């Protein structure tokens, strides 16, 4: 099974290159800090402390998960083409789709592992601080599943950039720009448009769809509780809930498929 062989060697390389370690430290550290620091107001507000923690972590994950996804993937095709290892791999009896899928599996496992450890720390610390009574673990599971989907989307985007750029240096520059656009500039642009529109038709009809079209925003919306807490986190969240759960889920599921398909199409045109 060539896909499994590729995934296996990529996991080994990710371990050697400290990628597993780095993403683990990143997610673990931030999750712990946010859980401990974010827990301060819960006693008085009387909200599930786990809910507070997941909300903080969601806000952070919107930035971190796309970043880790892009960093894991930008070198995948361009780097191999540049080093000359791709040409040799392609003389073996396996298709480019199998190579891409194998790399994707490995990188998703690295990402999933980091997120899982971070969330396990969150759960552990919350139980340690508040006891295990009255905790609702559903938001935690939802956060994990949607993190995987968000990560998968940005892995796919990273492969696409890697295949199109053909040079690692160029690819690394582009992924940083793409990251900035998706997690910062896109929202700023929408905010600007909202302000300019002043609550007109754009705010009510187009805006919710534009917001949910960005996988990072869809991820944020889907993990933000609709009641009191949402206003704590972001002004965009409250207005964006208009699109509803269905489109948010669809955005998170369709983006990985779309990005990976485009990456595959671009990869097929790479002459090693």
């Amino acid at each position, binding site marked *: 099974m*060539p896909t499994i*062989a*590729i995934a*296996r*060697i990529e996991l*080994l*390389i990710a371990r*050697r*290159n400290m990628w597993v370690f780095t993403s683990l430290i990143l997610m673990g550290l931030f999750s712990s800090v946010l859980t401990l620091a974010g827990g301060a107001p819960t006693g008085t507000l009387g909200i599930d402390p786990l809910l507070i923690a997941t909300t903080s972590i969601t806000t952070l994950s919107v930035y971190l998960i796309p970043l880790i996804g892009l960093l894991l993937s930008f070198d995948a095709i361009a780097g191999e083409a540049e*080093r*000359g*290892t791709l*040409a*040799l*791999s*392609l*003389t*073996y*009896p*396996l298709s480019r789709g199998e190579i891409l899928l194998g790399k994707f599996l490995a990188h998703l496992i690295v990402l999933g592992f980091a997120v899982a450890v971070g969330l396990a720390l969150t759960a552990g610390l919350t139980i340690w601080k508040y006891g295990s009574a009255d905790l609702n673990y559903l938001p935690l599971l939802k956060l994990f599943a949607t993190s995987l989907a968000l990560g998968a989307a940005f892995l796919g985007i990273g492969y696409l950039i890697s295949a199109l750029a053909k040079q690692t240096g160029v690819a690394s520059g582009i992924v940083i720009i793409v990251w900035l656009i998706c997690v910062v500039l896109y929202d700023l642009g929408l905010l600007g448009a909202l302000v300019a529109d002043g609550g007109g038709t754009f705010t009510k009809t187009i805006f919710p769809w534009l917001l949910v079209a960005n996988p990072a925003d869809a991820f944020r919306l889907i993990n933000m509780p609709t009641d009191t807490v949402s206003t704590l986190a972001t002004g965009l969240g409250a207005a964006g809930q208009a699109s509803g759960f269905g489109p948010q889920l669809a955005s998170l599921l369709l983006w990985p498929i779309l990005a990976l398909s485009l990456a595959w199409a671009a990869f097929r045109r790479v*002459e*090693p």
Partner: protein
Amino acid sequence: MTVLGIENVSKSYGDVHSVRDVSLNLGEGERVALLGHNGAGKTTLMRMVLGLTPLTSGKISVLGMPPGSRKARTAIGFLPESVAFHGALTGREQLHHFARLKGVKRSVADDLLERVGLTHAMNRKIRTYSKGMRQRIGLAQALLGQPRLALLDEPTSGLDPISRHEFYDIVDDLSKGGTAVLLSSHALTELESRTDRIAIMSKGHLLANDSLSALREAARLPIQVSVKATPETADDVAAKLGGTRVNGASVSLEVQQEGKVSLLGQITGLGELVKDIDVTPASLEELYRHYSVPKQEGK
């Protein structure tokens, strides 16, 4: 049976014609050396056989299958020029990975590591390897799964003379096992006794494709005969044989194949005057120059 069939294959990138109308066949167990300058089209030809580069025109078949097809790729072992691997892996991990891709047992990979003399370094990271050691890993992966066709692009670059010798022993074994071997090289002298056929490429054209002796015959390059006498007798010998005196005590002669035996008779007829004789047929270098240079100038 024909393992590799190349028929009237051309490849051009816009106005640049890398390969022009090349036809070449390899049968089971045949060892063919592909010679040519840098940019002569050797690597492009190999890449087309591997299915990495599409053909502009012509036809290539590997055991009757189109290049790049899964079956064709399973049948081929390839050693690229300046082979590269992921430096973070050990030699053993890298070779096991390739074994998995080819569906070969990992014990076979371990045997090959021993065959290419890398067992002592197999658990070290490839980034610590010398160029020669990387070349050996490259050779080992090309041998995985007993390929029916081995394509070796500049296989001996970076190898020391002893390693080169061992390399050709491996090629001989491959050929005895029925594998067709197509290898390109710059180091011409080592090819003389180690290949069945020589194919010479220049500027995309295939200029010659025959056994070494047949190429020699067709080229009609003279055989160099050097007769050693003494400083006193050298002029005498030169006069009798019709050669030119060199280095004070030697006489140099040129003769065609058919005149060789009678000339040797003449020399031995001189008896005591002759101290030593050297007979040198045209080297592969001379042949290569003969076949590749004049036709280039004619274009």
